[in-house]
């Protein structure tokens, strides 16, 4: 375990954590308003595909980003309509999103990019380059050579924490998630706020997808999200429904991911499957360790009924 290993590990942790953190931040806000979306895995998939499609069509990864966000919001709109307007079971609606995301992304990928031969070049994000600064020992590779979306994620986490806890709209979100009846009595439009939060969650999941396919990797592979969306949902719990907490939890999983890849190559005689399963094992262990130490938003998962 030398210097190079740790620099690579920490730098990798940022890279792997960013998509999980983006999705977890959006999900944190949605859950704080009382709506659980277990389907963000599906939204991230759609975002990942649309980002590739948009990048190729517009010639810039920023075009892809816009596509991904629109797609994410559209998917979230379906979830919002089902769970907020129709007030059906949020979990089942989320399961629908998982399957639909798998279907939409695979179906349209095969009709578009996947059908092109030779495969089109996919414009993707560059990494930050501050010249000499990015080359400083240690600090450079660890902190100053990432994609812009990584820095964006960190800023958004702190901004959301401030917004949620220190501003009027943030207070309304919390009120709606804790005690919708009281919020309603105070004149807050419960369902409207929940719509906003769920759509925000969709946009963030779309961004996470764009990061995966146009920053971390450069291209779309069917089912490429491989559980990151679910880990993001778990990160909301691990972060105790606090944006910065969710980001830290995501960072841990990023580090676990970066570590398992490196440990695989360093330990060829240990079956690689053991390393691949580590992040998933950690997720289960954390849920156990946190038992009784978290308190979820009181109205999480419960549709708001005005008549009561």
């Amino acid at each position, binding site marked *: 375990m030398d210097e190079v290993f740790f620099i690579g590990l920490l730098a990798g942790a940022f890279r792997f954590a960013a998509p999980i953190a983006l999705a977890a931040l959006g999900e944190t806000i949605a859950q704080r308003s009382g709506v659980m979306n*277990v389907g963000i895995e599906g939204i991230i998939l759609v975002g990942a595909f649309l980002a590739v499609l948009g990048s190729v069509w517009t010639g810039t990864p920023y075009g892809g980003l816009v596509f991904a966000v629109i797609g994410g919001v559209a998917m979230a709109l*379906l979830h919002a309509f*089902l769970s907020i307007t*129709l*007030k*059906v*079971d949020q*979990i*089942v*609606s989320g*399961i*629908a*999103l*998982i*399957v*639909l995301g*798998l*279907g*939409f*992304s*695979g*179906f349209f990928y*095969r*009709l578009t990019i996947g059908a092109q031969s030779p495969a089109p070049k996919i414009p993707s994000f560059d990494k930050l380059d501050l010249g000499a600064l990015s080359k400083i020992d240690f600090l450079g590779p660890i902190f100053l050579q990432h994609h812009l979306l990584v820095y964006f994620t960190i800023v958004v986490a702190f901004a959301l924490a401030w917004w949620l806890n220190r501003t009027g709209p943030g207070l309304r979100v919390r009120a709606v998630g804790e005690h919708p009846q009281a919020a309603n009595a105070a004149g807050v439009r419960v369902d409207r706020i929940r719509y906003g939060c769920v759509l925000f969650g969709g946009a963030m999941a779309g961004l996470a997808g764009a990061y995966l396919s146009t920053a971390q990797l450069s291209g779309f592979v*069917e089912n490429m999200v*491989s*559980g990151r969306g*679910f880990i993001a*949902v*778990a990160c909301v*719990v691990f972060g105790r429904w606090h944006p910065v907490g969710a980001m830290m939890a995501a960072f841990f999983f990023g580090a676990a991911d970066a570590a398992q890849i490196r440990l695989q190559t360093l330990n060829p005689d240990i*079956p690689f*499957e*053991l390393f*691949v*399963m580590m992040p*998933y*094992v950690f*997720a*289960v262990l954390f*849920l*156990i360790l946190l*038992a*009784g130490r978290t308190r979820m938003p009181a109205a999480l998962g*419960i*549709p708001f*009924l005005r008549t009561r």
Partner: protein
Amino acid sequence: MSDGVRGNLIVLLVTSGTLLVIGLFVLIAGKDPFQAASVLVGRSLGSLNGLAEVAVRSIPLTLAGLGIAFAFKARMFNVGADGQLIIGAILAVLVATTLPGLTPWLLLPIFLLVGAAGGAAWGGLAGWLRVKYNASEIIVTIMLNYIALQILSWAIRGPMQESMKVFPRSDAVPDEILLQVIADGTRLHSGLFIAIAAAILAFVVMRYSMFGYQLMAVGSSRSAARVGGVNDGRIMTLSMVVSGAFAGLAGAVEILGIHGRLQDDFAGGVGITAIAVALLGRLNPLAIPLAAFLFGVISVGAGGLQRDMGIPLPLINIIEGLVIVAFLVSAHFTNARRAPAT
């Protein structure tokens, strides 16, 4: 309009809406929806072989779907049928390949039981973690899916790899316990009878047993069930045990009826489809085989659409998703008059 008529009308509307949307996707793919409809039906129901393939596909979907129904009845959202199926199959094959010399009529039931037990343990673990540590069963079952996949990958490349050590797969299970083909020239095997028997058993348990009643009680209101003297935690865990057992049985049957051994991807994403099957069957064990059959038609037909017309296979997932959405929408309208459970 009576509630029943109203309910049927809504189901009809939702079904036709779903069909319209599917047609729309075929149009987007640049193909003729009517031709697609005829290919879909022709490929699946139009020949003995197609029909047999539909039945083959509906066997694991029925078994896993029944399992999903037990969990969902208690409002335990088991998204982990895939993992439970894999663990069940691994353990069953492990027993079959390490216990040679057992007479087939003993080994066959042991194989199926071990499969069910393996799935039950994997599902029960998630149920227990939910009850004891309040760990979301959705997240846990999905994590356990990924873990099971890695265990399978390790097993067939490591300790359980075939004696020849060439391919990543296990040794074949003894020929004598394989489920026999019941229609010559097809792959349809006697697992069909296991699936039908399981459905009847599940129906009886749900409808007539104390456990079935307690499942429903916990599912409609945990606190009310507890006040009524039901050990809600125990029932929630048990629902996942039973759920996993059906998935594990599905895995064992798939091995004995189709693959004959463990290999990568033998599970083929049954778990998520089984959720759509269970919901379409409205968690009713007698309706679930029919829903599984319908999804068998869709699955086999969509394969035909891909081969004959070049319509991408993930259309299946879109249809599954739409079925779940349709279920939710119709549930909303049929339940609108009733007070929703909290």
